[in-house]
């Protein structure tokens, strides 16, 4: 989906100024939300709701903004309102599933996401999120005692819809739950596939990973020259760079960032954002030409997107 530009926002603002009862506030609010201007988006949504208090899409917009602002209860309440106004609204079901996932209430999350999937069977991200929740439910009992202690994950704040993110459900939402380490998870064919997702894309001296919005590894791996698996460390540490990048492009009005490349003593690292706040990351040794690293990132990003959408 293309991102509305400044001209669109100006046009919608002018239209809204001319006609305060116009429904264009929905587009304007969403555009501002996607640009990370959540304060402005909130004002627009609230003003719109003053005139259209029974409009489901207006409440849906407010819920998304609340989710961006990490006000999960408020988001849930707004989506609940959407459901009252328009039963079976897929966006609301997705959103409520997302909130419950963040609250680790997986059974409820599954129920909402299953209903969302039924309401919109074409949405690959819902399917993916649902699969992740079900896998979490299936492995939860077997993984007891080997997962990260609860305290370790406290304070991890969901980032459902960082600037320009897609609606707050999908790969990132599904995986926002701190995943158990590779060794601690019950083996499953899907998980094995995830680890080797990029094996035919990268070659010796190169690694690729798919990270969720919290820096947890969803797919791929990173091994050093000695063969040690450093995926978790690399993912956790490098994902923070994208938060900083989001802040920079928002303030500088550069639009949504498309890639970050940085060179270190040991490697060239490149990353690109994915819908839902995730991140595709490539690391290659310094001998790899810069241009090739960029090509590699494009291919890895494409593969990651397809995988997250549930496509083989």
């Amino acid at each position, binding site marked *: 989906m293309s991102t509305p530009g400044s001209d669109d926002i100006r046009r919608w603002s002018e239209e809204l100024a001319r006609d305060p009862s116009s429904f264009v506030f929905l587009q304007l609010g969403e555009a501002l939300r996607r640009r990370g201007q959540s304060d402005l988006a909130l004002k627009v949504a609230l003003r719109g709701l003053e005139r259209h208090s029974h409009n489901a899409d207006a409440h849906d917009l407010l819920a998304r903004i609340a989710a961006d602002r990490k006000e999960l209860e408020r988001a849930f309440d707004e989506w609940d309102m959407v459901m009252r106004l328009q039963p079976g609204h897929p966006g609301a079901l997705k959103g409520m599933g997302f909130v419950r996932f963040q609250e680790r209430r997986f059974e409820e999350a599954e129920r909402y996401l299953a209903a969302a999937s039924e309401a919109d069977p074409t949405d690959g991200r819902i399917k993916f999120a649902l699969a992740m929740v079900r896998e979490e439910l299936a492995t939860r009992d077997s993984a007891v005692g080997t997962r990260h202690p609860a305290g370790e994950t406290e304070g991890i704040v969901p980032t459902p819809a960082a600037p320009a993110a897609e609606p707050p459900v999908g790969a990132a939402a599904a995986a926002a739950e701190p995943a158990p380490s590779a060794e601690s998870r019950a083996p499953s064919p899907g998980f094995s596939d995830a680890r080797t997702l990029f094996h035919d894309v990268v070659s010796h001296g190169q690694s690729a990973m798919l990270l969720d919005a919290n820096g947890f590894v969803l797919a791929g791996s990173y091994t050093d020259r000695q063969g040690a698996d450093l995926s978790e460390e690399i993912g956790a540490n*490098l994902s923070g760079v994208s938060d900083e*990048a989001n*802040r920079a492009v928002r303030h500088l*009005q550069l*639009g*949504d960032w498309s890639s*970050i490349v*940085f060179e*270190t003593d040991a490697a060239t690292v490149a990353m690109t954002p994915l819908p839902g706040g995730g991140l595709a990351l490539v690391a290659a040794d310094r001998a790899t030409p810069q241009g090739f690293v960029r090509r590699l990132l494009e291919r890895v990003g494409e593969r990651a997107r397809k995988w997250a959408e549930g496509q083989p």
Partner: protein
Amino acid sequence: MSSPFSEMLASLIRQRGVLGSMVVSESDGIIIDSNLQIGVRGQAVAALAASLFRKARLSARAAGLGEAAFLQLEAPNGRVCAAGRDDLVLVTVAESRANVGLIRVEMLKAMGALTL
């Protein structure tokens, strides 16, 4: 008034598509010297680019990848490049059409002069 960085910054701004370049303190994001086209929000670019570079440097180090030397952020409306050493960051902000390969080479070359 010229500084030890004036010549280096002037050579960078002459590159196609470059809107500004500056030497920034990594720790506080304050501009030490700059050469900017009119309209470039130098202070904001400096603070954000220095912060981004710092984050990348610390993250790379924590991940065991060594020191970060050069960073490039690409977005539809422009690019930000940063190269750093010894608490100094050389920042270049450029249009999307700029030749980033050339800018990178120039910046890495300029790094040699990046000492106070």
